[in-house]
């Protein structure tokens, strides 16, 4: 080996002189998911605050706009959906922040595996701890706002599908703004326009059910949005993280 390199300086050495390089052990998807879930459960305030915001504001609505049952029932689906959107947005800001600050995001970016799976694991946990509780609570809040009984299931289903899309889309904005100390309104400006289609078809699902029509098509579109977001949003977020880490 040595004579090879001495004989011809340009020749590549067939075998490294050291031990062969072992690729740094990349955590698998399950490890990533379990770690994120552990962290999320330990930071309980991050789970409870958006949920509390959601419930409190919706409880204030009848006081603010008056307790007439007909008006409330007409507005219920829209109100619940807008509040779900806002509380998702509220919790999105901190999605990558602590990982960015403690350097573990940089460690992930150094690994040979793509950032797609770490981002997906993070978003999945975010959805499980914010979106799913919102969706589960929504029929109860629907009842409080005099939403017609026909709307309970469509509301729940549309929120389950919709909040997953919101978490995924929001991750792109969170990744873009992670290097900023106070993203605040910028994050909202970036991702709000992307939230609009989800909002339209989310409320559309409930409205169709209340009007006595089938709500399958709207749910199918929400599902399609979710499928597209699951495929593309982690890629975009991974790219945005790499850009943020360059500075």
């Amino acid at each position: 080996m040595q004579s090879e390199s001495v004989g011809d300086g340009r020749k590549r050495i067939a075998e490294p002189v050291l031990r062969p390089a072992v690729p740094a052990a990349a955590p698998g998807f399950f490890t990533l998911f379990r770690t994120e879930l552990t962290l999320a459960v330990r930071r309980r305030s991050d789970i409870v605050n958006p949920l509390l915001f959601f419930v409190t504001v919706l409880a204030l609505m009848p006081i603010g706009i008056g307790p007439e049952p007909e008006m409330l029932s007409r507005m219920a689906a829209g109100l619940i959906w807008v509040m779900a959107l806002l509380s998702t947005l509220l919790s999105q800001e901190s999605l990558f922040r602590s990982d960015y600050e403690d350097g573990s995001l940089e460690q992930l970016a150094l690994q040979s595996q793509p950032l797609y799976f770490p981002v997906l694991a993070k978003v999945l946990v975010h959805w499980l701890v914010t979106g799913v509780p919102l969706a589960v609570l929504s029929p109860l809040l629907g009842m409080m706002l005099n939403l017609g009984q026909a709307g309970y299931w469509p509301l729940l289903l549309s929120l389950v599908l919709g909040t997953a899309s919101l978490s995924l889309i929001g991750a792109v904005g969170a990744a873009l703004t992670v290097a900023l100390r106070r993203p605040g309104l910028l994050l909202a400006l970036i991702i709000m326009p992307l939230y609009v289609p989800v909002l339209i078809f989310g409320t559309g699902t409930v409205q169709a059910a209340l009007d006595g029509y089938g709500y399958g098509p709207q749910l199918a579109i929400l599902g399609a949005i979710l499928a597209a977001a699951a495929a593309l949003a982690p890629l975009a977020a991974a790219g945005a993280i790499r850009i943020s880490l360059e500075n």
Partner: protein
Amino acid sequence: MASELSKSPVPDAQSVREQSLAVSGLACERDGRLLFEGLEFTLAPGAAVQVEGANGAGKSTLIRTLIGSASDFTGTIAWQGLAFPRGLAAMRASLLYIGHYAGVRRGLTPLENLAWYGAGQDDAMRALELVGLYGFEDVLCQQLSAGQNRRVALARLYLPDSPPLWILDEPLAALDVTGVAGLETQMNCHLRRGGSVLLTSHQPVNIAPLQRVNLADFSPRMAVEEELHRAV
């Protein structure tokens, strides 16, 4: 292979260049300010480089450039004869990097942090014992001191199957005297088994063989400023 390891790891200049991290004519800037230029050094297997320089001299920028986090540089960086960006993937596959932000999650315990880096339970326990965190395995890192958090990060150096290239940004920061001594011993072990270490530090580090690179020696010539002076 065995005879290779027992010999001095410096057969001749060209092959050293091909087995290691070689930097030549490197210039980096940050926010429009040129930090250093014409930087040259070679990090061979079994050798260590300590990068020195005043605050703001560009030590961290150099490290971030070397690990490929910052791609804004002129000059060449080559890993085993392959210039960046082509050599970057191979280099990262054999890299253990501990940065200024050490990659320790404060919401996890030391044991969970090491598991996240792919360490098995027994290996992680042993590594934590070696860095003096016996009994703290299951305490949340946010309840540990700055020095103890640094030790959690450094415990990665004590895991088996360590990658050959260590790049450490200020590893001695926040460490006490025994911590520094322990780390120096571990780095010496790593050098003896043919690994290489690149570190930044303000204090002297007792490892051998050590090459010191002072960024002040590569500070940009103030060509523009001189010209301005002449014009005035």
